[in-house]
C-alpha cells in the first residue's frame, strides 16, 4: 500500500471509458516523440523489408513491392511506458500475418530491427494472429519520420517501445534475445495491462 501524498488531489481528466486506460497511464491528446538518437532518413529507393534469421528462405520486399501487399486500416489505442496513452489512433499497413505467409520458420521469437540500430524482441505469437502490423500511414498521411516513417512496427497490445520505429526487418531466433531497451532494464514483454514496465515487474 502506498502512503497518501499529503495534499495530493489529482487532476483527474475525465476519460470517456476508463476501462481503456491501463494502470499507471494517463490520457494524452498530442503525440509525444521519444527516440534515443537522431531520426534516420533512409531514401525510399534504398528501403526494403527483410524477413531473415531462422527461416527456410529469407524474403525481402523493396518499398514499391511492399506497398502492393494487401494492406489494412486499423484503429487502436496505444500505450507508452513513459505513462501516456492515446486512444483511437488510425494506421494503415500490412499485417505481419500477411508477411509471415511468405516464410517457413519454426522459431519462437523475432527481433525487429531498424535503421539507426534499434532492436526489440517479441515472442512470435505476439506478432501473429492479427496482433501486429508494419504501418506506413498514420491518420491518412504518410507516416512522419519523427513517428517512425517510412514504416514502423505496430504492436498496440504491448508498450509502444515494442512498436519499433524505422523498422526494416524481422529476424527469427530460436532463443529470446533481448533488444535495445530490454537490455537497459525494461521488461522483456511489456504488457501494459500487467504494468510490465521494467525488469521484475
Amino acid at each position, binding site marked *: 500500500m*502506498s*502512503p*497518501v*501524498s*499529503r*495534499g*495530493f*488531489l*489529482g*487532476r*483527474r481528466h475525465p476519460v470517456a471509458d476508463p476501462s481503456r486506460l491501463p494502470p*499507471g497511464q*494517463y490520457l*494524452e*491528446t*498530442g*503525440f*509525444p*516523440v*521519444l*527516440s*534515443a*538518437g*537522431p*531520426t*534516420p532518413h533512409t531514401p525510399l529507393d534504398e528501403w526494403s523489408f527483410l524477413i531473415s534469421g531462422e527461416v527456410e528462405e529469407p524474403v525481402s520486399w523493396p518499398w514499391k513491392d511492399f506497398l502492393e501487399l494487401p494492406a489494412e486500416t486499423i484503429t487502436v489505442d496505444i500505450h507508452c511506458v*513513459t*505513462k*501516456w496513452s492515446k486512444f483511437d489512433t488510425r494506421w494503415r499497413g500490412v499485417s505481419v500475418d500477411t508477411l509471415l505467409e511468405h516464410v517457413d520458420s519454426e522459431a519462437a521469437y523475432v527481433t525487429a530491427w531498424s535503421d*539507426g*540500430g534499434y532492436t526489440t524482441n517479441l515472442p512470435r505469437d505476439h506478432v501473429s494472429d492479427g496482433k501486429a502490423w508494419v504501418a506506413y500511414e*498514420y*491518420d491518412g498521411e504518410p507516416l512522419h519520420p*519523427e513517428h517512425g516513417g517510412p514504416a514502423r512496427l505496430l504492436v498496440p497490445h504491448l508498450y509502444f517501445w515494442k512498436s519499433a520505429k524505422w523498422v526494416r526487418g524481422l529476424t527469427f531466433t530460436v532463443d529470446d534475445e533481448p533488444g*535495445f531497451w530490454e*537490455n*537497459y*532494464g525494461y521488461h522483456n514483454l511489456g504488457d501494459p495491462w500487467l504494468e510490465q*514496465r*521494467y*525488469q*521484475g*515487474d
Partner: protein
Amino acid sequence: MARAALPGRLTWQLVSVVELVEETTRAKSLVLTQPDWPEGYRSGQHVDVRLTAEDGYQAQRSYSIGSAPEDDHLVLTVERLEDGEVSPYLVDVLRPGDELELRGPIGGYFVWEEALGGPLVLIAGGSGIVPLRSMLRHWSTTGRDVPARLIYSSRGLSEVIYREELTGYGEHDGVDVRLVLTREWPEDWQGHRGRIDRALVDEVAGPPEEQARVYICGPNAFVEAAAGWLADGGRDPSRIRTERFGPTGT
C-alpha cells in the same frame, strides 16, 4: 532465508524531502534522502515518481535526476507544467519533511561516465538541462581530462536553471558554456540571441573527426533540429544520444 530481489528489479521506495530550492519561478529542485539503490545511479538516468490521493487514486510521472552519483542527496529538478497533474504538486504543494514515493534508477543509454570519454558535448533546451547538469557535476569530480562544452537554450535569463553553477563551470573549470536566450535578453547580453542554429551547434560539437559524445535533451523540436544537423554533418549517429519531452501535434 529471505529470497533476494531479482537483480535489477525496481521497487517503490519512500524518500524524505530534505529541502526545496527555487531554481526559477517555474522550477524547483527537490533535495531528497538517498534511496536504497544497491548500485547507485549514473548521470543521465531518471526515476518514476508516484503520488497517491486519500481515496487511493494514483498518478505516476518520470523525472530526470539532476544530482551526480557522488552527491549526498538525490535531486530532482521539476518544472511546473500549467496543465500538469504531478508537476504542480511537486513544485507548489510538497514541503520539507514530506515523503515521496519513487523507483529507479531507470534508463541506461542516455548516460555519461568517464569511461565513455569525450569530448563531452551537452545541448539542453529548457528543463532538458537537468540530466545534463548531473553529467557536468559528475564530470567536475571524475572526468576533468575530457573537454566539456555546453549549449543551454532558455527563453529568458530568469528561466535559466542552475545559472550560477553553470556559469561557474565556464569561469573556473574550463567548460565552454554557451547560454542561449531565445525570447528576451538584457541589452548587454554577450551570449547567443534567438534560437540555436546550425553554425552554433556545429562549432560547439567540433569537427566530426573529433568524435564527440553528444547528449541532447529538451523539447522534441529542439532535439530533432540539433540532432538532425549533427547527424547530417557526417557524425556517427551512435555517439549522438537524445532524450525528448513534451507532446507534439500529430
